[in-house]
């Protein structure tokens, strides 16, 4: 199993859609074969279509507000006394998280395919919020599938979704979180694929959805590459790019331009959700021992039991609370290009407190997992090492959880 150079990772799959011969694919019911094939062909054309690219760039610039800033966290760096800590503040993007890139692209594709309805899944509510924003912007009717447990814990985002005129469909099956929302959304698509477009909220699901999402979030690393050059006049020699990983869409977008670099020069570090310290449950299929399984139409490392039933996961962060992970991250792990670890709920909360204490930054619980790792490794590293954390979401949505968890202390 080997990575190729000079080819975007989203295109490094075989004819059946597998990365490294075993991750990804399209395990879908017969009914979805045709709509998935149509979408695949359309995307193939659109990504080479100059007009479409112009449109994308126009909305990325004028609607999403790119580029997001790249800043040094001086106080945190000083406090930790080791490597320099920087942040790519992707949460500045319209809506407050990276999910807007994928949502905007899907809305544009939906329009291009002549469909009027768009549906999507959401965990933390950001994917849903952004899709509802994009739908509103482009005049599409929108339904968002969300686990009942997540609706409760991410209320601010739910309010935003409804305000944008989208309907939230609560999902009561299973663990009532993201995994069930994705299943229900796919079921809805099976029944309505003739007039409805589906957006999968991360780099997961059948092959084509992994590709579209990765293609969309790749904007983050294109910006970062330019920002490195303008800040340091070149790409520095010791970089560590730290990103949280749930489905893995922000991490892929943050890394895509840098995958070809030597890992001694640019290390890629993915941080999964380790769940509560005392709990056996987690959402960390890459960093804790799991086997390959099929979930939501793709093969990846999955939290599952021996029989192949998908395990319940547990994390304070709804956006990372997912038993599977992008096939591209499985490939990056097995080729050893990226290193994956996890942070517990408690570590993420501590990191959140430390970052907000020293910096004018308000990372949501998802990137707080990445900050936890940065805080852990920074003191041991040299001063010329550049750690960049993708602060991919804003903590406004976590208001209630933070209030509850941090006032107890």
């Amino acid at each position, binding site marked *: 199993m080997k990575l190729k150079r000079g080819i975007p990772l989203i295109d490094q799959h075989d004819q059946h859609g597998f990365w490294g011969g075993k991750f990804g694919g399209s395990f879908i*019911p017969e009914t*979805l074969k045709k709509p998935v094939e149509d979408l695949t062909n359309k995307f193939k054309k659109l990504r080479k279509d100059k007009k479409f690219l112009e449109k994308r760039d126009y909305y990325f610039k004028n609607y999403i507000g790119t580029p997001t800033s790249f800043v040094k966290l001086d106080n945190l760096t000083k406090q930790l006394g080791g490597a320099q800590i920087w942040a790519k503040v992707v949460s500045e993007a319209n809506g407050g998280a990276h999910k807007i890139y994928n949502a905007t692209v899907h809305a544009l594709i939906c329009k291009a395919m002549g469909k009027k309805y768009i549906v999507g899944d959401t965990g933390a509510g950001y994917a849903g919020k952004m899709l509802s924003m994009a739908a509103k912007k482009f005049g599409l009717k929108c339904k968002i599938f969300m686990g009942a447990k997540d609706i409760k814990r991410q209320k601010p985002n739910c309010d935003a979704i409804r305000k944008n005129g989208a309907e939230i469909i609560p999902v009561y099956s*299973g663990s009532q979180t993201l995994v069930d929302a994705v299943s229900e959304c796919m*079921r809805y698509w099976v029944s309505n*694929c003739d007039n409805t477009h589906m957006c999968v909220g991360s780099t997961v699901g059948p092959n084509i959805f992994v590709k579209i999402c990765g293609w969309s979030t790749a904007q983050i690393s294109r910006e970062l590459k330019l920002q490195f050059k303008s800040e340091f006049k070149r790409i520095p020699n010791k970089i560590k790019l730290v990103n949280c990983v749930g489905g893995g869409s922000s991490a892929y977008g943050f890394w895509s331009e840098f995958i070809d670099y030597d890992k001694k020069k640019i290390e890629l570090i993915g941080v999964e959700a380790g769940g509560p310290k005392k709990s056996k449950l987690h959402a960390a299929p890459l960093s804790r021992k799991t086997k390959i399984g099929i979930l939501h139409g793709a093969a990846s490392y999955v939290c*599952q039991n021996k*029989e192949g039933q*998908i395990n319940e996961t547990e994390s304070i962060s709804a956006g990372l609370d997912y038993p599977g992970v992008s096939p591209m991250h499985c490939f990056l792990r097995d080729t050893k290009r990226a290193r994956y670890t996890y942070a517990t709920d408690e570590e993420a909360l501590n990191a959140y407190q430390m970052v907000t204490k020293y910096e004018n930054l308000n990372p949501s619980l998802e990137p707080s997992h990445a900050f936890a790792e940065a805080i852990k490794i920074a003191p041991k590293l040299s001063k010329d090492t550049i750690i960049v954390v993708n602060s991919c979401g804003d903590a406004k949505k976590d208001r209630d959880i933070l209030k509850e968890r941090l006032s107890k202390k």
Partner: protein
Amino acid sequence: MSSLINSAFQNAKSEGRPALLTYTVAGDNTKKKSLEILKSISNYADICELGFPHNTPIADGGQIQTSAYRAIKNGIKINDVFSIAKDFKKIKKNKPIILMGYYNMIFQYNENKFLDKCKKSKIDGLIVVDLPYPENKPFAAKCKKKGINFIQLVSPTTSKIRLKKIIKDSHDMVYYISMLSTTGGKLKVSSKEILERYSRIKNQDKSKNVVIGFGITEKTIKSLKKADGLVVGSAICKEITNSINKRQNAVTNVTSIVKKLKNKIR
């Protein structure tokens, strides 16, 4: 020698009616109960589909999800599914049984081991919901080698060229999904339209037994009786749920439904 599945269709045809296929979830609501239900309804059903439950079923509607979650909650394991089938076959050795489920369960068990176990349990056919053509070719070939029917699915979205290829590679039976829906949806297409599409499939190769499934209930079954076979699943699972809720005997209630279904297509 003709497969049991083929004979079941021949037999129904000789009686001038479509074959009746039932779907129940193994272990719903207990291992023992589901075997009893299976034995009892097989007096009226021509072919029995037995679902091996998965907790992330992306193509099943509410009724079958409920049955599957209930079975899993009550501890059903894949080996129990095989033992239910095996026990069933001890008594009804000529009644074809088809296992139906999602690929991850087979993948975790190991394809070859799974098929060996199918063979030992006298399973006649397999339906794997999320392993479509052409990705399923190697697995379908393995099934054929073991004398197990791999049943291809065809839907209203299946293109003409694709249909041709699927039929060509299919074994004795082809499953036509009546409409764009998960299992148990309300029939939203007219039976005339369904039968038109059905004929197009049938005309590809008259020797294949084509069944129609999804949205078939006591109300709709009669209108589709021209087909080689009709599958009823959600309506049965729903009755199990109702019986449990009302603390009634699921075996008798479900059997009476299957009996009624059979009478409608005689």
